[in-house]
Structures are given as C-alpha cells and as structure tokens.
C-alpha cells in the first residue's frame, strides 16, 4: 500500500441514504498524498455519491470525511474548496456562456478576498488581486493547452477540450486533492492517452493528489497507484491495479457470477 503515513483524505464508515435506497453503505476510503487513486465499480455502485459527499453536495447520514486532519463532513461545497479539494463532474458542468479563461478565473475566486466596495472603487489591493487571478488562470489554461481558446465561450469548444477545461478550472482553485469523475468519458484514444500523460505529469510536477472515478480500464491500469472497488454502496476490494484486475470478486461484480453469465 502506498505511504500510509501521508494520508490526505479519510472517508470513514460513510453512509448515504436516499429515501429507502442505501447508496453508500459504511464505506471506507483512504487517499494518500501525491498518488493517483482510482475508484471503480459497476454503474450505480455509489461512486459519484461518494464524491458528492466528499465535496459537500450531500450530507451523509453516517460516517465522517476527514481531510488533512480536518473534519469536513457536511460542510458546504465552497468551504471544502478552500480546504483544498476541487472536482470535475461526470456530465461536464462548465459555465457555458462565459469564456474559457473566465471559467478558470472563477476557480481563483476563493483565493481572493476583495469585496463589493473594493471592486466598485478599484482599490489597489483589488487591482492586484485581479491581476493575480488573471495570471494564475492564464498559466493554467496554457497548462491544459487551451491558450488559443481562452476568449471562446466554453460551450463553443470541442468536447475533449471541455473536459480539459473543467480540469483546468478545478486546478484554478489551487487544490491539494483533485477529484475527477470519469474524466476520460467520451474521449477518443488519442485524447485519453494525452489525458493520462497530463495527470501523471501533474503528480510529478506539483504537490497534488488525484482521486478518480473511471470506467476505462486502460486509464485505471495505466496511471493508478492504488485501486478501490465499489459495488452496491460497499467496498468490495482494494489493492494494486494488477491485483484488482485478477480479483474474482471484482470480475463478478462487473460481469455477474458464473451462474448468471
């Protein structure tokens, strides 16, 4: 198991109910700093629900989420962002009618403090902050290779670029933990490879940790340091990618048991 001493995120006995449905059931997940962790499992396993709990969209009925030693269970999404967690969505949720650059600049919102009066009167502090927001956004947009599209409306760029833009927006919040929900969904082979390269490069160059949900096994096998498998709200296996690949329970969860096949 990757370095247990550098546990960044702890999900402890997480339970989330929707009416009669137990979407997440006593779920544990530890994520270690500087690594790429993958959360996999069949559709409806509860993976996105876990992400939604971690990022504050849902409040769990049971369990805790601890980040860098802080209990962030049930906190509001924007608070969780300032702690250092940023995310992307399964169905891309960009700010469609704003430019690509503005999308990333919105990420920097929580890292600035200028208020209404400062913005109306353009104090020097506010001007400095605006310039800084711009600079950070510009460097991130270059990082994902979308510099040329910076003034395009987000809804007008290609699908693959939109995926990268969403990641860039998340990076715009200066996160320590990047949570990606099916980032390769809808990408072709070339785009997927480029995404994998990008993510591994990210881990190497920056002080960042990545947790992702993925269905594409090439991505999971290719870049993960550790894989956690979920089915029907519970963790059914975890380990190094190669071990998970051959794990009987995992195969059963995805493909069904011998009798039903």
């Amino acid at each position: 198991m990757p370095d247990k001493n550098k546990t960044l995120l702890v999900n402890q006995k997480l339970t989330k109910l929707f009416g009669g449905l137990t979407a997440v059931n006593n779920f544990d997940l530890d994520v270690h700093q500087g690594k790429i962790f993958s959360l996999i499992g069949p559709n409806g396993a509860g993976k996105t629900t876990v992400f939604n709990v971690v990022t504050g969209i849902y409040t769990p009925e049971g369990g805790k989420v601890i980040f860098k030693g802080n209990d962030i269970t049930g906190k509001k999404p924007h608070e969780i962002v300032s702690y250092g967690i940023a995310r992307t969505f399964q169905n891309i949720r960009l700010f469609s009618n704003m430019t690509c650059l503005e999308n990333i600049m919105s990420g920097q919102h929580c890292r600035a403090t200028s208020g209404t009066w400062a913005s109306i009167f353009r104090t020097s502090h506010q001007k400095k902050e605006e310039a800084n927001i711009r600079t950070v956004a510009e460097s991130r947009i270059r990082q994902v290779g979308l510099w040329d599209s910076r003034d395009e409306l987000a809804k007008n760029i290609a699908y693959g670029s939109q995926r990268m833009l969403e990641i860039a927006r998340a990076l715009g919040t200066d996160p320590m933990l990047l949570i990606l929900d099916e980032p390769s969904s809808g990408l072709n082979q070339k785009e997927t490879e480029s995404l994998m390269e990008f993510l591994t490069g990210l881990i190497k160059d920056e002080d960042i940790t990545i947790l992702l949900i993925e269905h594409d096994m090439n991505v999971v096998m290719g870049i993960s340091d550790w894989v956690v498998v979920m089915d029907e709200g519970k963790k059914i296996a975890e380990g190094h990618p190669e071990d998970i690949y051959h794990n009987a329970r995992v195969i059963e969860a995805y493909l069904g048991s011998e009798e039903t096949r």
Partner: protein
Amino acid sequence: MKYSKTLNHNPFFGSRHSVLIIVLGLFFIYPFIASNYYIDIAFFFGIYTLLGLSLNIVLGEVGLFDLGHAGFYAIGAYTTAILNTKFGIPILILIPVSALAAGLFAYIVCSPIIHLRGDYLCIVTIGMGEIVRLALINNPFDLTGGPNGVFGIDFPTLGGPFVIDSSIEYYFLIWIVVGLTIVGLIRLQNSRIGRAWNCIREDEVAAGTSGINVRFYKLLAFVIGAALAGVAGNIYASKLMCVSPESFTFWESCLMFCIVLIGGMGSIPGVIIGAGFISLFPEIFRPFAMYRMLVFGTVMILMMMFRPGGAWPRKREGVAFQSLVTRMREKDA
C-alpha cells in the same frame, strides 16, 4: 488574430467613442429644447432605467426570477416619504437611508428563502411584493396613510437656494444617479463579484464546487438590487411629492422584469433600451389609448420571437440567441 478585451463588457469605449459623444451631447441639450412634459417623460425614463439596472443585478447577472422587485422600490419610497414628512429629514440625506432600508429589508426577507429553486423563488418574490403593497394599504401603526398614501414630501435641497424642484433639475438628478450607477455596475461586472454572480447563473452546483459561496452572493445581489431600487424610490417620491400603494403593484414588478428581458439579460445598454421602450411606448401610442396595450402585449410577444436575446444582448449571449426566424429558415432549406 486580435482578441477583444473580453472582460471589458462596456461597449461604449473603443470604436463607439464617437457615438457616446453624440449621445452625451443630445442628453445635455435635450432639456433645454423640450417642454416640461417631455422632460418629465425623460425623467421617468431615468427612473425606469435605474429600476431596470437594479433588477438586472438579480435577474440578469445572477439569473434569479424576481417578480416582487416593486416591493423594494416601495420600501425606498415610503421610507423617504415617512421620514421626511414626520421628522423633516432632508431628502438627499434620505437617499442612503432609503437604500439601507430597502437593502436591509431584502436581507431579512430573502435570507430564509434564498435557497429555493428558481420557480419557487419566483412565486415567493411575488408574494413578498404583494405583502409589501397590502401592508402599505392597510396602514399599520398609522404610518403609511393607507390607500391614499403619504403627501407633502419635500424637494431635495443642497442647502440655501440650491433646491431641486424643476423638471430640468430632476432630469439631471436622476440621470447623474443612473450614470454613477452604471459606472459602479460595470466595475462590479468586471470583478470577481460579477464573475461569481454569472457563474451562479450558469450553474449553481458547479459554482459552489468552484469555491463560490452561492448563498452569500445571491443575497448580495438581492441586497444591492434592493438598495438601488430604494434610491429610485427616494427620487420618485420627492419628484411626485407623494406616494401611494398603487405605484408599487405586481404590474410594476412585471414591467421591470420586461425591461431586463426586452433589453437583454445582464446587459447594461440593453436595460437602457428596455426602459426606453417601457416609458416611451405608452407616450407614442397615447392617441390610440384603448388599443395601445393590445399593441404593447403583441410587441412583447414579437420581440421574444425575433430577438429573444433582447434588443442589445450582452455580447457573449448575442452569439447564443439566434433569431428564431433564421433557425426556421435553416430547417426548411
């Protein structure tokens, strides 16, 4: 390829510099060549512009359906009316007081309901607007004068002989206030505040997970919008010298709503155009008295059919709102 300054939404500078000079020139000359009747029309144009700008923050920038905005307008007007007639407080001092009263009211009533989903928020704002109007009619604590309202409001004075009491002076007063408001709003648009608002309008959930405190910024929009409407109420009250509940009906809220939509959501020049339409239309069609509202309603429908983005959509949305006619033609082709 040359990139436009995307963050500068102000279309008045750059290539349109000369148009601005001409407009400003006309603006200054107008009251000296027009009769009082027409200057007053231009005054109300200014009031509606200010009201439109105030609602634009809530509806245009953040995308919240507010159909009770007349309530804030009323609070501003009545605060001025009551404090001036009962305590003799000068009108100009009451401008920030009215703004504060309306803003505070917005903060108190909107806090418990700001999380409601768009359509439910809409009906609640309608209810709030009606509650304000009904409360004013019912004359609680004998403060509001009931259906007849409050009379005898002073003119604004800067001390000594500098009293604002003529049509021309009111014209300049309102348009100076509008001008200052526009400058402030443009600066807000181009700041992290304005961006936060727009993000919330685009996708509330994504805004939250991008670090924006959605609740705070929604409330902020309402408070600022209410404060500006309160200022409009103050100036309106002193111009008319009296206020009564029938100036602050649901219909007024609908008019303001239409101003923002007909002009173009989030677009400041659009609001000016929308306000112009709303205040000038009845005048132009005065000879047709009985039928003019039929035409008004028809024009509203036609406008949405052919320019749903508004008369002067904010640049980015202008790309998005293709005219329906074009789309229909493409389908037939």
